């Protein structure tokens, strides 16, 4: 029986959805390896400990809370040193992080500090003897590689959205601890975090993504997609590289091989040709809809449903229909 560590990611004082995913995964891992405990780590400004309750709800038995006024913003060095210290002391079977921007930054530092290897961006995992075996989409999503990570702790990042948060309530023991590195000693300092839009969901978290390509003709026409996203109510707006390169949309909206990799419930590709580099970022979406005036556009090969025609006529109609459906509920 062995315990499992989960890093509970926060930003600006809020618990991120990926934190619940990672705790859920750690609970599954602990149960699969004989029913050990799940220990979660929360780091942030004073008050961050309030998130211990939802972590307990998702299966954490113990929550280590590290609060410091200077930790309002993520500090790679302080958080890595602290996570490494907690993991070293805990003797864990596995240590899970999200493959989010923060987790991808953090986990490799922690693994190196512990002098162990790690597995990245897993979409599924299991334990076989002393090894963690995980599935990892590689080669821009064109290959699924099953990796085998020997030894403990098995450090791994989990692809956001791959684990569905599930409740397994318990009342966790909450303990506070000091950062393992004084925040004043950090050499790398985050001086600003500029949120892009407070109203729109993040691409990694939105159940619906409305994505636009060069077919939109100009930046201002993305308003059509914004309106469609508003009609859904739970949508984010993505883009192709053609569009972000031309400055129509922010580079961080780019979906694809060199942008974000997303798997929403519903992905609407509007005026997007379906280049292989774009498909690499969205092919694991549950349902894909394509709207394109060219019936031979490659996007129709990956789309579950396609409509051939002029997006400038189709999208406003779709927005109207979605509004109706939402209003009926």
């Amino acid at each position: 029986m062995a315990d499992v560590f989960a890093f509970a990611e926060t930003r600006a004082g809020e618990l991120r959805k990926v934190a619940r995913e990672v705790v859920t995964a750690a609970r599954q891992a602990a149960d699969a390896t004989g029913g050990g405990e799940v220990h979660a780590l929360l780091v942030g400004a004073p008050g961050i400990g309030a998130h211990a309750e939802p972590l307990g709800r998702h299966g954490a038995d113990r929550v280590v809370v590290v609060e410091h006024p200077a930790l309002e913003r993520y500090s790679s060095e302080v958080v890595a040193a602290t996570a490494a210290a907690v993991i070293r002391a805990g003797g864990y079977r596995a240590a899970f992080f999200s493959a989010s921007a923060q987790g991808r930054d953090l986990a490799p530092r922690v693994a190196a500090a512990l002098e162990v290897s790690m597995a990245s961006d897993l979409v599924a995992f299991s334990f076989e003897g002393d090894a963690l075996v995980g599935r990892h989409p590689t080669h821009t999503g064109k290959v699924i590689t099953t990796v085998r990570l020997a030894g403990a702790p098995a450090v791994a990042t989990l692809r956001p959205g791959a684990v569905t948060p599930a409740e397994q309530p318990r009342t966790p023991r909450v303990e506070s601890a000091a950062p393992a590195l004084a925040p004043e000693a950090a050499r790398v300092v985050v001086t600003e975090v500029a949120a892009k839009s407070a109203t729109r969901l993040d691409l990694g978290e939105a159940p619906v993504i409305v994505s636009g390509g060069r077919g939109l003709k100009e930046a201002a026409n993305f308003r059509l997609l914004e309106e469609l996203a508003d009609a859904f109510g739970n949508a984010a707006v993505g883009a192709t590289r053609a569009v972000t390169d031309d400055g129509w949309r922010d580079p961080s909206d780019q979906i694809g091989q060199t942008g974000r990799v997303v798997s929403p419930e519903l992905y609407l590709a509007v005026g997007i040709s379906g280049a292989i580099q774009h498909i690499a970022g969205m092919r694991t979406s549950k349902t894909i809809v394509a709207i394109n005036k060219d019936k031979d556009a490659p996007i129709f090969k990956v789309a579950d449903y396609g409509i051939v025609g002029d997006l400038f006529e189709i999208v406003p109609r779709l927005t109207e229909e979605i509004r109706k459906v939402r209003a009926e509920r």
Partner: protein
Amino acid sequence: MRIAVCVKRVPDMELRFSIAPDRKSLDPAGLKYDLSDFDGYALEVALRLVEQRGQGEVVAISLGPDDVQETLRKALSMGATRAVQLKADAVPADGMATARALAAELGEGGYDLILFGRMATDTAHQTVGPMTAQLLGLPCVTAITHLDLADGRGTARRALEGAVETVTFPLPAVLTIDEGIARPRLPSLKGIMAAKKKTVEVKPARLGEARLTIQSMELPPDRPPGRIIGEGPDAVPELVRLLQTEAKVL
């Protein structure tokens, strides 16, 4: 300014892949290889920094068997000053093993900056850069999309989900480079000629034990064929009906 850039040789991602009979590697037939995309951006960042200052050197480093020399030649023809091959029988699947060998080489180099790609497009670990930084005890900023250097300090920007973070750090430092920061140049004819006269220094890679191994590889299942449900706005009600009743996503 001395800058090291770690570059990896990877298969060209445009091609169709098939899995080899051992079921844990790509069938090499028909594969072409190139510098990993993000490493191209890293190299471009390094070249521009040295050009702007009118002095300094860019050292390209690649770990692997002799075929990585082809990748290093490309780096030289783009303008790298020197190239080092850390020779190994194969490129390890374990990012930590790679990081150990790179750290052993880089620690002795007296570099102001050590650049990596955000990720290698084949293994997609996104770990080698920050692991190497940790092993070297150097400050590290990952996945940066913007960089300014002045007076021995740097300012970088990195994209978070839904936000952009600005980070400051002292040199020497390790950075991993995301797309968008600088379009890589193509090797010029002059560069290709100059590269021919340069030699690639070969050293043994100090890898250590690998604990991450590849158990199997497979191609993802094809998406079931979809269908075109109609033309123009009149097809919209049918789409909405299918999304509700068949896909159940509304």
